[in-house]
């Protein structure tokens, strides 16, 4: 006879990572069968319902907290709830308090303005607060003269544009909202990999796009000067690329930067033209990587177009600017097949063919939006329709996030999936649950996953995913393949080689690039993938 307890606390804030950690610790308490401490968002409440916790959603919202425990009996559940409360009370005391200017007994600053006043040396704010409070935080940071890296999402495009104009007027960078990754002066912000420093400057409206390109470059022995994130909507018509243009100016003036890569999901055509012109104006060779864009903008001299991240990385490795310099040491041999992007495959350690074919549909479960996009474009180029929550074409949108339709790719980092919970690169819970379902579905021939390493990400994603893959393959030994696109750098804290080995040991086919993983998935599903690399992904789709 088990007992459960559910408690709702209205207006109680803890950040999503803290809640995830408390939930995890609570589940490990003796006698506890299930436990959760979550913000009362629709996604979370649905997840609780599936765990058998009934919570009436009426009147609850993201600023309310739900605590649930299930234990052996009622008394144990009561005890467990007390322990959960104790864990919660103890959480959030990790910080060591504010900067200088305080003194004994002085409370840590509660605002960016206060922090900046206490320590005038501060120059960059890293923001990860609930999206509905972002506008004020950004305004305050800019007012205080701080550059901003804004991981959170939640501003409407008009407000974002206004904030970015203010930032530009003040000579400040506003990286985001919805900026997953940046590497400034060698320091990774948000989700970023420990890649080497070098001559390539990156500007990206996509966090995982930056991660993929910088990791592919790192694998090829080429480093980056800086990677400036600008947020997922920077190249939208409303925002007009304000920060991309500003970042290009900064990189133009940066002596360490010799050539440039600009990354975005398909941008507004007018904005793309402006970005192309600005890239040309830097006087440094540049490539625009817009995976999924069918018609590249007119390209001024010195600027190239790549329809995939892979192709962009390949260009940046073997760029004309690098001619005369010693050839970078390339880890993979296979030659490109003349799609205009030089040395396309050279940056990718290639797995050319799967050991066995497991026919069926492909289910892509991604934590990185642009990785999902890049892979999806490759698959759609062969099979046509791919259903997704970030579809290549509007009519391919999934009706229900939680139910696949044929070839289906889900981005678990998308807004609707992350409100009130940690990003899937930190908290793989939602994706793990979906993986189990998809792998068990007899219609599924291949599950395609991304695993993203680096600062900010889960400390051991392979340790988390490996047993799940192992079990899934054991249950369908001849019916299922699992392909993993492993995005990481040799210096990452998780250990690239160890992660790859653990995933392979579990039975996954592991590649270093998302496009290559997609080609491998097609082959494994028996869908006659052209193992042609690079730009092929570029012709699949329209704009969402």
């Amino acid at each position, binding site marked *: 006879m088990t007992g459960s307890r559910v408690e709702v606390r209205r207006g109680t804030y803890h950040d999503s990572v803290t809640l995830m950690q408390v939930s995890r610790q609570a589940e490990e308490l003796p006698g506890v069968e299930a436990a959760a401490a979550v913000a009362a968002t629709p996604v979370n409440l649905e997840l609780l319902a599936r765990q058998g916790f009934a919570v009436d959603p009426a009147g609850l919202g993201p600023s309310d907290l739900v605590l649930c425990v299930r234990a052996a009996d009622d008394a144990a559940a009561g005890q467990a709830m007390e322990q959960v409360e104790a864990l919660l009370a103890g959480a959030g005391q990790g910080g060591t308090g504010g*900067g200088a200017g305080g003194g004994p007994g002085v409370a840590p600053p509660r605002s960016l303005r206060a922090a900046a006043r206490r320590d005038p040396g501060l*120059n960059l704010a*890293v923001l990860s*607060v609930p999206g509905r*409070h972002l506008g004020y935080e950004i305004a305050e940071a800019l007012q205080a003269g701080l550059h901003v890296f804004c991981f959170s999402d939640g501003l409407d495009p008009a407000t974002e544009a206004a904030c970015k104009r203010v930032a530009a007027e003040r000579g400040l960078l506003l990286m985001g909202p919805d900026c997953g990754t940046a590497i400034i002066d060698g*320091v990774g912000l948000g989700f970023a990999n420990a890649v080497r420093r070098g001559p390539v400057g990156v500007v990206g409206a996509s966090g995982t796009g930056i991660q993929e390109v910088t990791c592919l470059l790192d694998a090829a022995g080429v480093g980056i000067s800086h990677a400036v994130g600008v947020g997922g909507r920077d190249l939208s018509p409303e925002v007009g690329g304000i920060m991309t243009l500003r970042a290009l100016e900064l990189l133009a003036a940066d002596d360490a930067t010799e050539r440039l890569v600009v990354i975005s999901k398909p941008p507004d055509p007018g904005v793309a033209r402006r970005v192309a012109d600005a890239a040309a104006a830097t006087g440094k060779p540049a490539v625009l990587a817009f995976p999924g864009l069918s018609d590249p903008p007119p390209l001024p001299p010195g600027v190239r177009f790549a329809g995939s991240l892979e192709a962009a990385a390949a260009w940046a490795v073997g760029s004309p600017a690098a001619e005369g310099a010693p050839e970078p040491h390339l880890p993979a041999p296979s030659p490109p097949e003349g799609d205009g992007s030089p040395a396309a495959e050279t940056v990718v350690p290639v797995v050319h063919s799967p050991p066995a074919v497991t026919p069926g549909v492909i289910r892509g479960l991604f934590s990185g939006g642009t990785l999902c996009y890049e892979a999806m474009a490759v698959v759609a180029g062969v099979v046509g329709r791919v259903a997704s929550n970030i579809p290549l074409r509007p009519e391919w949108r999934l009706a229900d996030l939680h139910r696949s339709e044929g070839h289906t790719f889900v981005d678990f980092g998308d807004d609707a999936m992350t409100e009130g919970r940690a990003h899937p690169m930190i908290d793989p819970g939602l994706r793990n649950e979906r993986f189990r379902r998809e792998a068990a579905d007899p219609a599924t021939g291949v599950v395609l996953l991304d695993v993203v390493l680096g600062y900010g990400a889960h400390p051991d994603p392979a340790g988390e995913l490996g047993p799940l893959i192992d079990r899934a393959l054991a249950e369908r030994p001849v019916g299922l393949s699992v392909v993993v696109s492993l995005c990481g750098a040799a210096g990452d804290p998780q250990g690239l080689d160890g992660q790859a080995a653990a995933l392979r040991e579990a039975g996954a086919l592991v590649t270093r690039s998302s496009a290559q993983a997609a080609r491998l998935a097609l082959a494994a599903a028996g869908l006659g993938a052209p193992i042609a690399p690079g730009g092929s992904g570029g012709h699949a789709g329209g704009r969402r």
Partner: protein
Amino acid sequence: MSGLLGRPLKVVNAGVELFAGELERQQAEVARVEWRPPADGAGEALERLATRAAETAAANDRAVVAMQAAEPRVVGIGRAGDLLPGLDERTLLHAGPPIDWDGMCGPLRGAIIGAAVHEGIAADPEEAARLAGRGGLRFGPCHERGAVGPMAGVVSASMPVWVVEDGASGNRAFCTLNEGLGKVLRYGAYDAEVLDRLAWMRDVLARVLTAALERLPEPLDLRALIAQALQMGDEGHNRNRAGTSLLLRALLPALLTVEEPTADVVAAAEFISGNDHFFLNLAMAAGKATADAAAGTAGSSIVTAMARNGTEFGVRLAGTGDRWFTGPAGVVDGLYLPGFGPEDANRDIGDSTITETIGIGGMAMAAAPAIVRFVGGSPEDAVAATLAMYDITWAESSSYQLPTLGFRGTPLGIDAREVVHSGVLPTVNTGIAHKDPGVGQVGAGLVEPPMEAFVAATRALADSPTA
């Protein structure tokens, strides 16, 4: 090597702790904001205000410049009914936001009763209460007549008031003369002793002081007096010993030469010498003149009044004109006189929070180690209390300095947005009145203003048209 951003990277993290930890793992320097969502009901207003942050900043700069420029000076003492607009014989002013008889707390009712008898409107306390109860008296906040009053803050037409003028803006502010501690009208006492004293203050004290003030070579500079007092252990609200001493010193030569009966002069000197808080009412008038210099600055989120009537705590902003935003007055957490305890206390009351409004009083606790027991016991606590106030204020005073903080200016210009954003409330210290009329002061301590007043003010500012 300055890096991409022109200076070496130095990060402040607001939100998920993980990101701060990961930066430290990369040997980056990281400060942390202890981020919490804004106060209930304020989030949406802050988002709207964010879209005009630059305008608000400019307005706040103007408001604070006006406060910095204020030069409050004592220009004399006059009869309230002659100086305060609309203060006729049947009108009594009180502390805090507007309130009617039914809503008034015990001490405020007691003071109203006492003042009605003092004015001769009623023959005795019973008649005064009856008159008030059937609408025979008119009430209004001091603040709406350019005045401030401590505790109950009751001002009636015949009472003498300090006349303080801001030399920069020409604003005038008024405050009654301080009656001393214990059984006094401002704490709701109205027996014969209280009424006799009020009559003496009107007939003798005001006359002697007026004569002395007239003999001064120039008007008393309150800004200078307050600045000195802050460096002598006062904070200007609950400790006024230095201010009172400095005032008496300034008046002494004049008092010795006034052409008034010696017995009256001696009585006046004894009265002031025996009342550590005599200077409080001058500090309050100075505060009112200073805060009013910022009042009416369109778009500004700076607080220009905090005042309590014993039932409600009211706030006004520079950018929202004469409107009051209120919440329930708090219960004072403090030290009690022997024989009294929290069960005897009335809720927070008085206009004396005008001192905090201009950055002294509780905001400047670091100046007053002698009374740190109000804030937790140690001088370190007092310093911490003041340091926390810089987080919610717009500027630092160019006139008032804190020796213990290396002569840093006092925190000036409470920004209502930052109060609701950070959850940090202005530190207010105050006297405690007995809840029943007629008893008087029973203690002193710290009180929390109600957050909802600041939330309502912030929302109103967000609703106000942009400049």
